[in-house]
């Protein structure tokens, strides 16, 4: 899982982009702590052909990206 909590844009998306480039995983989980990052990671994930689901977890958000 990519823990991108504590980072503001564009860092969470950069972390996801690196993972996609390195391993092109079928599924991955990303944890972020702000709505802006939820929107940005979702947008990036969709552009890379992933389905993205978002689950709030307390103050944080767990995003699941899957192909």
């Amino acid at each position, binding site marked *: 899982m990519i823990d991108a*909590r*504590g*980072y503001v844009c564009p860092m969470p998306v*950069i972390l996801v982009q690196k993972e996609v480039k390195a391993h092109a995983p079928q599924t991955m989980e990303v944890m972020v702590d702000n709505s802006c990052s939820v929107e940005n990671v979702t947008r*990036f994930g969709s552009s890379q052909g992933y389905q993205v689901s978002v689950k709030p977890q307390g103050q944080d958000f767990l995003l699941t990206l899957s192909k």
Partner: protein
Amino acid sequence: MKKVNYLVISAGIAVGIAALVLTALGNPANMGFCIACFERDIAGAVGLHSAAKVQYLRPEIIGLVLGAFLMSVATKEFRAKAGSAPATRFVLGAFVMIGALVFLGCPLRMVIRLGGGDLNAVVGLVGFVAGIAIGVVFLKKGFTLQRAYAVSTVEGSVLPVVMTGLLILGLAAPALFHASTEGPGSKHAPALIALVIALVVGALAQKARLCMVGGIRDLMLFRDASLLYGFVAIFATVLVGNLILGNFHLGFAAQPIAHSSELWNLLGMVLVGWGSVLLGGCPLRQLILAGEGNGDSAVTVFGMILGAASAHNFGLAGNPDSLNEAKELVVGGIGTAGKIAVILGVVVLLAISLINSRQEVEAK
């Protein structure tokens, strides 16, 4: 990523209209909304510098922070966070501000100047894009100021509280603050109207994540143009408004509060673009983030205010073009101290970029 982000476009149009209205109501020409200029005016108002022409407690800055604060509380997006290299951010904020005041405007004013036909802003835009490109190179190399952590609500509320305090003092005891009687600082829209407009813009900018650097940066990093629509919407709105109002004047020389010393327009905005990428957002975005609980952005804003004070205490800021008594053009620009400050800024940004970039050996 081809989906058009209507919220960003709406926010951009709102900012453009706000700039036009505030200018019509008294703000300086092509300066309806300028984060750098207005923070400089606040620095002057509280006596941090003594440049008599640029001192005024600008309600726009107060309104932006409080608008973002109220919106983030209302939508439960307020998050008190801090601890991501605050001291480094303070320094970055100061140099971003010095770069902006060399050019005579933050990225937002650059767009507003473009919409007024000021071609010096095209040179500024070239520098701004170049600066962002340099920043993006370091982001790709692994640049990071590390993560922030949850802090107390009080810590996350420092800038909104400071702004509320300034507002109360400004209303209750206006004589406490310096206020220009001539020059840009003396030109302002009625304070309450400016405050209300800024509250609305701050709330919209928070919701839309409006950022002048983010659009170009995300396009370079992810081919994501969504934030760029805001940038374009502001430009288009201001351009159309100026054409209708007869305020569009195409040219380089003697533009309102601008100089045509192009090398320094360019290099000033390189500092702004580069520094803003390292900070994660333009000066406007820093105000908004500070409003939604980001203590690091609050520190950045304080750094920008210190940078503004330094820019005038040490004569670093640009001097506008002017006409002499014979109506001949006197090209403005910056003095030797300003040139040294810009070069020092480049060196400092390079050092910060290198020190905070982790060389990654990850195979592609």
